[in-house]
């Protein structure tokens, strides 16, 4: 497989052209082709700056009108990549343009609408805010128009209010309007840089009212976000102030409030006390699994909190969230967190696994097992279960769970059993060594056995491991005893069908993997029929061509299949299911 990025080729093509002259730009403008050129300008930054300056100058001298280029119809023709190139150009140039507020707002609205749900969709709002700062009188006219009910002005009110940090005006909108203009006022209160602590406190007092229960959900969410923005501006605000906000928001929250809370937990968790984090997580247990933005924020928050003093809260939260009866969320919904768990601190993963097993938390246990299946091979846990202070029943129970969920990662499963063996009495050790032999060593004669052979004589688990290895040897010797019994072998016809089926399966797996691959959408896909290296030429600036050579490398994954999957699939499936779903009697 050889590949090359489309982006790289486009870059190379773009880089090959120099900055157009003013005359060319005017000609392009008059021919209706300037928007096409603007959407392709993503070369070196100094060239881009010069290009933008030249365009602004032409606009401000009235030879072209950049704002009129933007319309829904014009934007519809652009693909995603070119649109965002264009948006970037406008975000940089809008603050410098001489234009009416209406033209600027219309342009920004079109750019925002086209961007849809993308994370960068709101950037033109900031460009408008900066334009307002550069044109305060025009900003005031926007505020005035909003007061009279002008729809376009109302839409941009929150940013116009930031032009000169109009606190009083913002408070006025927050207090005296009951529609979207109140939301704009609240939003502005959070974004405005308060000159004094008194101003901030005044804003905070208004915002706190709107955060409390009984208010409109959108209003609560906006007020909560704004209040945290105000908090950031003065060190005089204490963690208790933040905790109070979280506590107030936690009272009968709606979906938007939960979304805002998840934002804060993700982005402002540094301001939160442990108690506030706990309160926030308790509140977020009410999240609707269908609200993907909130789930995404929670995922990011969990990821951020790992490795912080709030880590235990994060792990308790995920544990509790995934054990809610009838819940549909799984670890897969929290991919950033999951990735960090699977690849980060092994002891943390061990503790979370044990927590999941002990609680018989099916979704968390399965989710973690799936994560480990998908992750690169990791070293077995090298620890003891002693700090967990488990009872004898619990020790055997977690071992069975480890086998049930981590059966296809036998080394990891073995290492959990070993951690118990290092902390248990002889009765439990007898039960655990049986499990070590059957089903683990009965099924796996490869890496799991090799791993167990490395357990040193001084290790508390050594005796049990030796016993299990001895049983395994006896079992393996028995398996080989029959030698070759031709009468039992599948016929050539049957083997042929097996081969064809395996080929079909592999083909399907490859297709599926490619359909899931993020790379396949980014790269050009070439299939090399011959050779072990590829050579292609890339166009560079000045009609030069650069040779790109690529070596082919083999990529392989090996997985040891459990022996009983072939000789007793039903029995194995039954046993593992029992291990997975059984619960400890209280």
């Amino acid at each position, binding site marked *: 497989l050889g590949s090359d990025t489309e982006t790289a080729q486009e870059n190379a093509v773009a880089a090959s052209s120099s900055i157009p002259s003013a005359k060319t730009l005017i000609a392009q403008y008059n021919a209706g082709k300037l928007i096409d050129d603007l959407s392709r300008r993503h070369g070196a930054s100094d060239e881009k700056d010069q290009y933008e300056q030249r365009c602004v100058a032409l606009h401000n001298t009235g030879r072209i009108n950049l704002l009129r280029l933007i319309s829904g119809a014009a934007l519809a023709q652009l693909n995603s990549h070119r649109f965002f190139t264009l948006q970037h150009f406008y975000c940089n140039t809008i603050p410098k343009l001489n234009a009416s507020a209406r033209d600027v707002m219309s342009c920004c609205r079109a750019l925002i609408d086209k961007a849809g749900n993308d994370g960068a969709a709101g950037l033109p709002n900031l460009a408008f805010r900066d334009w307002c700062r550069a044109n305060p009188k025009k900003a005031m006219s926007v505020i005035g128009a909003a007061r009279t009910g002008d729809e376009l002005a109302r839409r941009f009110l929150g940013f116009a209010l930031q032009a000169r940090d109009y606190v009083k005006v913002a408070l006025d909108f927050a207090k005296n309007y009951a529609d979207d203009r109140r939301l704009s006022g609240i939003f502005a209160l959070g974004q405005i840089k308060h000159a004094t602590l008194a101003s901030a406190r005044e804003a905070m007092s208004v915002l706190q009212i709107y955060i409390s229960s009984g208010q409109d959900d959108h209003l609560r969410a906006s007020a909560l976000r704004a209040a945290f923005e105000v908090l950031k501006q003065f060190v005089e605000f204490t963690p208790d102030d933040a905790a109070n906000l979280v506590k107030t928001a936690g009272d009968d929250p709606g979906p938007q409030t939960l979304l805002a809370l998840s934002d804060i937990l993700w982005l402002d968790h540094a301001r939160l006390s442990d108690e506030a984090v706990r309160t926030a997580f308790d509140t977020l247990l009410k999240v609707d699994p269908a609200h993907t933005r909130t789930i995404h924020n929670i995922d990011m928050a969990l990821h951020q909190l790992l490795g912080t003093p709030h880590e235990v809260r994060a792990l308790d939260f995920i544990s509790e969230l995934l054990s809610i009866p009838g819940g549909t969320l799984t670890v897969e919904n929290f991919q950033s967190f999951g990735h960090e768990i699977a690849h980060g601190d092994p002891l943390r993963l061990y503790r979370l696994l044990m927590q999941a097993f002990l609680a018989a938390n099916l979704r968390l246990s399965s989710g973690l097992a799936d994560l480990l299946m998908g992750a690169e091979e990791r070293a077995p846990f090298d620890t003891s279960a002693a700090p967990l202070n488990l009872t004898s029943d619990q020790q055997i129970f977690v071992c069975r769970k480890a086998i049930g969920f981590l059966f296809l990662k036998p080394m990891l499963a073995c290492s959990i059993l070993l951690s118990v063996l290092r902390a248990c009495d002889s009765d439990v050790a007898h039960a655990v060594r049986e499990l070590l032999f059957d089903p683990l060593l009965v099924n796996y004669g490869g890496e799991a056995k090799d791993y167990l052979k490395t357990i040193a004589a001084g290790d508390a688990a050594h005796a049990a491991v030796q016993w299990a290895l001895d049983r395994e040897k006896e*079992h393996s010797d*028995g*398996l080989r*005893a029959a030698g070759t019994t031709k009468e039992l*072998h599948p*016929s050539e016809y049957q083997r042929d069908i097996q081969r064809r089926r395996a080929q079909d399966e592999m083909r399907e797996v490859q297709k599926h993997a490619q359909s899931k691959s993020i790379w396949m959408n980014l790269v050009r896909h070439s299939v090399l029929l011959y050779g072990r290296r590829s050579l292609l030429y890339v166009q560079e600036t000045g009609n030069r061509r650069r040779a790109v050579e690529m070596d082919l490398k083999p990529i392989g994954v090996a997985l040891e299949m459990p*022996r009983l999957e072939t000789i007793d699939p*039903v029995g194995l499936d039954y046993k593992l299911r029992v291990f997975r779903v059984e619960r400890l009697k209280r």
Partner: protein
Amino acid sequence: MKVLIRDYLASLKEREELDAILPDLLSELGFTVFSRPKRGTTQHGVDVGAVGRDEDGEHKVFLFSLKQGDLTRQDWDGTTQSLRSSLNEIRDVYIRTRIPKRYHELKVVICLCFGGDMQEQVRGSVKGYTDENTTDRISFDEWNGDKLAGLLIQGVLREEILPKRLRSHFQKAIAMVDEPDIAYQHFSILVRRLTERELDGKGRVRVARQLYICLWILFVWARDIDNVDAAHRASELVLLHTWNLLRPYIGTRKGIIKALTTVLHHVIELHIAIATAMLERKILPHAGTRHTVSIAVQTSVSIDVNLRLFDILGRISLTGLWLHWLIDNHPDATLLAAKREQLGQLGARGFQLIQNNPCLFLPIEDQQAIEICLFLILAAHTQGSQHAVRSWLHEMVERLRFTLQTHGRYPCIYTDYRDLIEHPRARTDEYRKEATAGSILIPLIAAWLAALQDAEALKVLTELKSSLLSHCTLQLWMPDESSEDLLYVGRTDHGIALTDMPLTESGVELLETIKEACEKVGSFVKLSAHRTRYWPIILTACRHYRLPVPPQFWIQLLLPADESRGI
């Protein structure tokens, strides 16, 4: 062809092998055999005695003393078992006292018979002995592998009765004996072509002998390459076709039926010998070791293990049932104890095989109920532990429930390997409904569980029948009036399906229904194999042609003694 037969002859062992085919060979050449090999009796050097025309045209008595393979110095002289000692005994005792009176006037030819060649270093000694002891009445002749092969080709396998195209199938069967499916295909063509012709009594005897000799040759070659699978399957086929040749003559002309019965018994013995060669040497020694036989399948596909292990269970069962029949019908005092011991071992090892190879706790094909049924009958006849039977069936029900509920590898109606390897093709209710449209397995195990009073397992079955299997037609199969003509030759378009079997938690209604049906359908007792007490032939046909075992074979085992009368 001659080379092929010579190699086969050279591989034969004296006991029960060379002496087993020689009488048939002689009969086919026109000899009258008056003495056949017998175990436990003093032979005085003679393995086979016959009267026939010598090359000079004169009627003479031929006394054969057999040795396996090549005749070596050790075989010739030096021990009490040597050929020279045998020849001395023939001259000193047999000729004087054991030749039937009616042949006393005939000259005697003592035949030194061996499957291979006479080694050169011994030829001088043999010549010296025969020259010295040749008289007017007694002469000596050498019947080596080459001569025997020639006689076979001129006799029982001569071209008029085994044409070239059939020889070709036979040769291909032997050449491909390590690919049992292909070898069996060719051999079955040979069997069908030989038996499908219109044949009179003598013709039937000749064909039966041909089948027997061909089976022997196939077996010896299979044994040489260490894979007797094809030979075992071929032996079942030969057995069934030999019976089909014989059955019209039951109760008729004495000579034909006697000759056919003799061949039939040889085939039965050969069939058991082939089964024993595989089971006792290769499978049963490992039945007591966990997973060993399963692993020996050497596959990465679980379906192969399931198919092979149930197949082996069926072979164990049928071999055991043939031994049981042999003990009941041909009590040879010298062998009885050994046969009983062998039978007990088969039953016990069968249970060990199940315990140590857990795939035997649930079949993948519904039709593997045939093997399960055969083993249950064997267990009943060998006084197998009721507890072991009950545990096996109980676990089977548990696994059945589990696999049905989880859309796992539950028993399905499919028999094609491509379907089985994909099973379950979809984990949907629709597919499950299609794959479990009918069942002979469920009523079978329900009936046995009812007799064993396992209410818990019956409850599970009843619940499954009223939920996941509500669409499934529970059924059993019984022969009808057309079965007698079709059963032994592999036709499956005959018989009666007993359907809509009642399933309740007590199982009483089920047993009653089966009992009533068995009483009502009288065709089973009219089957020739049943009438003549050769009942394992029916079981062999069921296993070989994949027909359910008729409930008449087992229902009486499940009913209280007073209720089972008359079935």
